């Protein structure tokens, strides 16, 4: 009954939306003037991403076909200027994605699932049932005094200078489940409830921005949502990272003697879960002494997030500082106590141990600037410093077998720095053979620095995090025939794992319907020398994606 009601609601909502859209398809949906200061406008888009994997079969997944994505979005914006002092805004979104054959049976049986809501018969990527998905933004903006404004509600706040990745952009977690580089950060950010203030100080060319962000969203929306980790014996989700498959004891181990607990005895168990395994027999195999009972401990509502950012323009520099107290948006795994429960058939009667996936508090201190150089080009730079950032560690205290190993020895805190330096050369390359637009080029160098990186684990792999991990990204773009066709090429390279990304795209925006329709074809290639280092953790997921969007 509940399902029927939900389905009926969805149909009625779509019909209602079509009533709005159909009359407006060829002309602008004009703003409605309700008074001298009052104006109401509606706008949005319908978008479809259709993508095909180019490598078939997909490793670590079933594949009856190559479909990588078939995501349809409907987004609507309301912008209501009530008066010069008061404004209301809202963004609603509905998304549908079908079940994917390549993920059939993903969800696993090993119990390391991070998101227990996965695999709801293909509904996990669709967004129409949960208010946290459908009501992306809703806020009131109030300007009590000139130069001061407060925005209250669910919204998106962007900090930072980097374009190819997130450095100073620390306010929001991301939903990384449904996309690999074909949706931009605007689409993957998870909006937050917050009170956000802006205070201008014109006498010193400055603005002060502050944010207070209680965790009012449902728990799983308070942190990054990642594609389900592939665990031994299970199918991965489309955009999950490649699993650890190397036998590298004691960090990643396997049992190749018995058919239990895994149907596939060649699958490895990564660290830290490998801590509950011990060597067995002369052949180097390992067997479990316990099973993990993984529990997610999300940040609580009262785990307040708050911070501020300054912006000043002086001497040609535009610069500022920031501070934000939040939680780590990716979990670290804490090894806990035995739970007292024992596994039943068909598993061997071994005890369960609690492993908690936690999101500890962190403080992020940032600085940034941009400046026009005395020669052509703009330089941008930013850096964040996270003192005592939590990491998973290979700390070997309590090596196997050690049922009384000290607790919480799978995580540690270390100082962490991430920085970006970029050079933009826009409009400089303008040629007589291409008069309708210049070529724009951007170079970004991003680096991560962990001064004391010993024994820190890279995600779930048997790799130590590097002390310094640089990447180099470049984007070149232009448009043709006065923006009838636009082209861009994004190239990223990370020396670690000799890995990177190549992403050419071409977009066609025909003049029909006043350019409301656009069609983009994008090829995404992720390369690396192996599956465990750098961006190689996402290699083998080459795809081509066609994005069609209709703006209204």
């Amino acid at each position, binding site marked *: 009954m509940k399902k029927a009601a939900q389905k009926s609601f969805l149909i009625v909502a779509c019909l209602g939306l079509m009533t709005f859209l159909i009359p407006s398809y060829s002309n602008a949906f004009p*703003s409605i003037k309700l008074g001298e200061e009052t104006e109401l406008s509606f706008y949005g888009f319908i978008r479809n991403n259709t993508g095909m994997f180019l490598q078939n079969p997909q490793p670590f997944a079933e594949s009856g076909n190559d479909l990588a994505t078939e995501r349809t979005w409907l987004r609507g914006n309301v912008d209501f200027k009530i008066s010069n002092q008061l404004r209301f805004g809202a963004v609603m979104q509905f998304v549908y994605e079908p079940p994917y054959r390549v993920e059939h049976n993903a969800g696993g049986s090993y119990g390391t699932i991070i998101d227990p809501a996965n695999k709801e018969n293909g509904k996990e990527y669709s967004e129409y049932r949960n208010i946290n998905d459908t009501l992306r933004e809703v806020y009131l903006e109030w300007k009590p005094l000139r130069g001061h*404004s407060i925005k209250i509600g669910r919204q998106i706040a*962007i900090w930072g200078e980097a374009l190819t990745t997130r450095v100073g952009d620390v306010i929001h977690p991301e939903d990384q489940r449904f996309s690999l580089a074909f949706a931009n950060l605007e689409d993957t950010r998870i909006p937050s409830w917050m009170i956000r203030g802006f205070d201008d100080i014109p006498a010193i060319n400055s603005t002060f*921005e502050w944010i207070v962000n209680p965790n009012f969203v449902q728990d799983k929306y308070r942190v990054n949502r990642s594609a389900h980790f592939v665990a031994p014996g299970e199918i991965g989700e489309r955009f999950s990272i490649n699993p650890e498959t190397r036998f590298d004891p004691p960090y990643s181990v396997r049992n190749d003697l018995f058919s239990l607990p895994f149907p596939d005895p060649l699958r490895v168990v990564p660290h830290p879960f490998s801590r509950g395994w011990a060597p067995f027999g002369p052949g180097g195999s390992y067997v479990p002494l316990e099973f993990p009972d993984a529990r997610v401990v999300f940040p609580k509502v009262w785990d307040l997030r708050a911070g501020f950012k300054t912006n000043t323009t002086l001497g040609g520099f535009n610069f500022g500082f920031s501070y934000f107290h939040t939680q780590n948006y990716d979990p670290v795994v804490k090894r806990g106590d035995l739970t007292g429960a024992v596994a039943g058939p068909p598993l061997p009667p071994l005890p369960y141990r609690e492993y908690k996936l936690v999101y500890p508090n962190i403080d992020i201190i940032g600085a940034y600037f941009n400046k026009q150089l005395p020669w052509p080009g*703009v330089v941008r730079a930013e850096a964040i410093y996270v003192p005592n950032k939590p990491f998973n560690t290979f700390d070997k205290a309590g090596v196997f077998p050690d049922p009384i190993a000290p607790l919480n020895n799978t995580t540690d805190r270390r100082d962490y720095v991430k920085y970006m330096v970029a050079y*933009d050369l*826009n409009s400089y390359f303008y040629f007589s053979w291409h008069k309708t637009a210049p070529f724009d080029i951007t170079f970004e160098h991003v680096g991560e620095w962990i001064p004391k990186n010993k024994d820190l684990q890279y995600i779930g792999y048997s790799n130590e995090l590097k002390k310094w991990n640089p990447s180099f990204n470049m984007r070149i773009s232009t448009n043709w025939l*006065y923006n009838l066709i636009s082209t861009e090429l994004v190239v990223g390279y990370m020396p670690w794992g000799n890995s990177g990304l190549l992403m050419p795209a071409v977009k066609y925006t025909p*003049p029909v319907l006043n*350019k409301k329709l656009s069609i983009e074809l994008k090829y995404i290639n992720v390369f690396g020398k192996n599956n465990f280092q750098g961006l190689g953790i996402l290699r083998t997921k080459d795809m081509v994606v066609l994005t069609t969007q209709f703006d209204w």
Partner: protein
Amino acid sequence: MTKNMKKILALFIVSCLSSWFLFTSSSFGQVLPKPGEIIDKSNYKDYKHLFSEDFGGWFENGWGLVKPLSIKVSETKPNPIPKAYLAFSEKNRGKYTIDKDGFIAGGYDYLGLPFPGVTKDDKDFATKLMWNYEYRYWFDNSEENTYVNDIRKGERTTWWEGRAYWYHFFNRLYVDPKPIVRTPSNLYKALRFVYVEPTGMKNLMFLNWRYLDVKKSDDIYLYLPTLRRVLRGEAGQRSAPIQGSTNSLDEFNVWDGRVPEFTYEFVGEQKVLGISDNKWTEADVKARLGKAGLFFIPTEGWEIKDVYVIDIKSKDSKYPQGKKRIYVDKENGTSIYFTTGWDRAGKVWKIFNADYIKYPLPDGDRSNCMGGYTCVDVQFGLISTAFIYRKLNPKGYAYGDFLPATLLRLAR
């Protein structure tokens, strides 16, 4: 007097008169239309001396993109600089000069026209005229609705709409504080522009700062709603087209080149037909947006105007336009009725014509502000027509509304 002497005297008088007729005006002896007369395909060649070079394509075949132009000539009306600004500028008369690099020498304080009353006999006339154009008076502040139609060969007409907010920090005559608003960055003026339509460009904004120090490039900040980021634009590159548009920053308002970056040559004087008070209303324009087959240049109100013809060349040898010729109203030095731009190979590239609107000022005078322009990219086959409707000198502007961080605060 002998018969021969009489003949010689008669020949001398005739030759003097002929020489005077030939050299006093390039239009003298050429036909001028009367008020009420229609100029169209059937007769434009008789009056081609009243338009910029190559403008004839509008009448001949509408450049193959629109229906051929047909215009109605009106009575010529005066079009002076606002009296208050002329009076304000009088203190500068004869005070400043031009140095070897084309800058104003003598300690110009950025208030008033730097060279009021400059005449064509001045050796630096063209450069001084352009400095007067740079420091012209249009308004203290302005809020503008801009509508642009784009017509390209074989395709549907598209259009976009935007809103502009100008804040002049110097030469303020009517809105307090006047005449100066001191800013920490020593700005001369600032422009904030936001795209309203189509949806794909909605809420895209840019902020342009122009400094008092003419040796400093403008600073430009761009807000991209798809990224929700403010990006720093490339200040020095003003010759490349703004996204999808025929215009570069130097062609904003038909001509907005930074004076010291170019050289100027006085070519001569002539008469042209231009619109100094366009009567098309905002409603007239909105009814035309996106429609094919309609006129996009105002067809009425074309007056005979006396203009100076100035050639402009960039000091940068890589500047994409080899030469630009502008036709500036002699009476006010601020209304540019036509421009023609040639590429580096000497081929005609872009042809602009502009019309103006007389906005009332609080003291009863009128300010002549650009009402719109049309640009033909002859080589590509695209026409852009823009219409600008302003609310002149609104109150309530603040410097804080024109900071780079303002773009994030206003962002949607």
